[in-house]
């Protein structure tokens, strides 16, 4: 989080406002930026994140599309290759399934396949996160897939500050960036300076310092980790919380150094655990901090089940602060 040297109370924005502001600023700065997606204009998306943008930038730059995820992504690739900077809105992260060819076979590869001559500078904004009672096709966190694909970058901010800074970076990046927003965090508030700033990709953020165990977390799970750290503090355990911010580029160094320091690491992510983001992070730490680890690296992804509708079941599928704290305690030999 930013170290605010001002004396005045920092400006607070919700995550939705921060994202909106990032888009508005970039659209003002660069006329080649435009937004395309379903119900993005007057409706401002079902999450209301884009509210007001069509009024400022007009329907030529904030475009309501047919319900054609592959089509709008493909159109975005072509527009990006010819000089524009599209921000394609895929309402729910689950709908990326419809646009995979355009994202993975087209956007991600064109720079390489053309020997560096063409490029596709575009952002695909989408969502992740469960516990919204939206059931199996509207709740997934599929960022592991894109993290796997050379040519793509993947950001998943946890705070309004990070969201704004990373989204501005994403828009300016010359590569396709998949930008994951947690649906349930849109109303979360946090300090966001009024001045212009961007945040670099590939730099994890230590959201809390600690010495006994490292909790590596992404997106929504950063809060779970921070709460778990509070719980652990009550038990006299000092947890360091590292927010990844981008799964690729991956800040291996920060992860490994933190794990070396604490000797223990637990990685937490809202994607399915199996073959998911936690696997990469755990194996990077296990390899990089091998000689410093006092316990195996532990992973906590979402349960490997399609996400159930019933609240009593759904809540079981995602890591909780109590669960993380318990696992961390066990790792520290305090079970």
């Amino acid at each position, binding site marked *: 989080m930013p170290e605010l040297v001002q004396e005045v109370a920092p400006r607070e924005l919700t995550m939705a406002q921060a994202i909106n502001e990032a888009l508005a600023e970039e659209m003002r700065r660069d006329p080649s930026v435009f937004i395309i997606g379903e119900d993005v204009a007057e409706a401002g998306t079902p999450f209301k994140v884009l509210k007001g943008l069509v009024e400022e930038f007009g329907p030529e730059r904030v475009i309501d599309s047919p319900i054609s995820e592959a089509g709008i992504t493909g159109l975005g690739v072509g527009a990006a290759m010819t000089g524009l900077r599209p921000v394609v809105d895929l309402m729910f992260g*689950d709908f990326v399934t419809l646009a995979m060819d355009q994202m993975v076979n087209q956007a991600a590869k064109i720079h390489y396949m053309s020997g560096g001559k063409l490029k596709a500078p575009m952002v695909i904004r989408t969502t992740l996160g469960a516990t919204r009672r939206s*059931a199996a096709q509207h709740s997934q966190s599929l960022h592991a897939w894109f993290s796997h694909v050379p040519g793509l970058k993947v950001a998943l901010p946890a705070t309004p500050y990070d969201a704004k800074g990373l989204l501005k970076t994403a828009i300016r990046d010359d590569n396709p960036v998949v930008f994951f927003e947690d649906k349930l965090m849109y109303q979360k508030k946090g300090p966001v300076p009024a001045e212009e700033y961007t945040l670099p990709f590939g730099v994890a953020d230590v959201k809390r310092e600690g010495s006994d165990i490292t909790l590596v977390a992404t997106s929504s799970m950063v809060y779970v980790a921070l709460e778990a750290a509070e719980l652990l503090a009550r038990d006299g355990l000092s947890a360091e919380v590292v927010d990844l911010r981008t799964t690729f580029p991956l800040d291996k160094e920060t992860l490994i150094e933190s794990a070396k320091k604490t000797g223990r690491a637990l990685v937490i992510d809202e994607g399915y655990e199996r073959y998911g983001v936690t696997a990469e992070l755990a194996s990077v730490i296990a390899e990089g901090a091998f000689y410093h680890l006092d316990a195996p690296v532990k992973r906590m992804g979402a349960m490997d089940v399609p996400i*159930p509708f019933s609240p009593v079941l759904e809540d079981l599928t995602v890591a909780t602060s109590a669960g993380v704290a318990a696992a961390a305690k066990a790792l520290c030999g305090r079970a």
Partner: protein
Amino acid sequence: MADSEVKLSVADAAGLTEVGLEQWLHMYEQMARIRAFEEQVNQLYLSAKMPGLAHLYIGQEAVAVGVCEALTRNDYITSTHRGHGHCIAKGASTDRMFAELLGRAAGYCRGKGGSMHIADQETGNLGANAIVGGSAGIATGAAFTSKRLGEGRVAVCFFGEGALGQGLLYEVMNMASLWKLPVLYVCENNLYNEYTRYEETTAGTLGGRAQAFNMHAERVNGQDIRQVYTAANRLVGRARGGNGPAFLQCDTYRFMGHHVGDIDRTYYRTKDEERTWREERDPLPLLKTWLLGQGQADQSMIDQIEREIRDEIAAAVQFALDAPYPDAHEVTQHVYA
């Protein structure tokens, strides 16, 4: 006709399939059941008793009921995020539906599916689908099975006009036409893709999309169940007889929001428009007026149906509210068959 010129001339019954009073009353009852169910769902939402959201079918009842009335229990349907109406029309019972919407173990899917995934194998409902257009392949595949096994079943794929934005529809309509599969693509044009007017997202006509694949296409007033039923009956018979798929556009309107939380709608459609549809094109009064006007039915029959449904829905929702949640261990059940 222009897309918004969906008028109903109650007097004109020419060309309608003739059915007995009992069947008309059954259709009325099914529409009333959907209406009452959905009004109750809205109440559950407003009183914070239902988890998540739901997309109400109010206003579109004549489509689901008119089409399903032309089907047997063995026939298949696939449905959408706005699927309660299809589910009821195909024969599901409202108590287990409410239980599903409330995430209870007694629900059709043991609470795991919820509003957007209700399925009921017993009545041939292969499931609602939260991916717009996502069930088009499933319906086509069900028709494929029927043809391959010579079962004589027909599959109906319900979808909103917005689903024609999805490439999948075209891929499977091509195959259905090529292979003469017994499938009926029922496009419910309620004029909006969520919060966007469909003309803004749709070039050309809806039916033309099917005709491009040499598929027979028809268009009816979706508020007039007599027309819907007549057309569906003919097209289902055609499909069952081996004459291939068809596309049926039903012009309709959702009276409520896109989902229960969509309260302020004036930024995308006028109150006037809503009023016109509600007051002049409500499928229930339209059928009732016709039945009464014809002297086929009398008011007491209608009253009785409505009373019974009121009681049924009250009992059904109570059943659901009292039903237990699934056990925690169920969370890892049914991942694999």
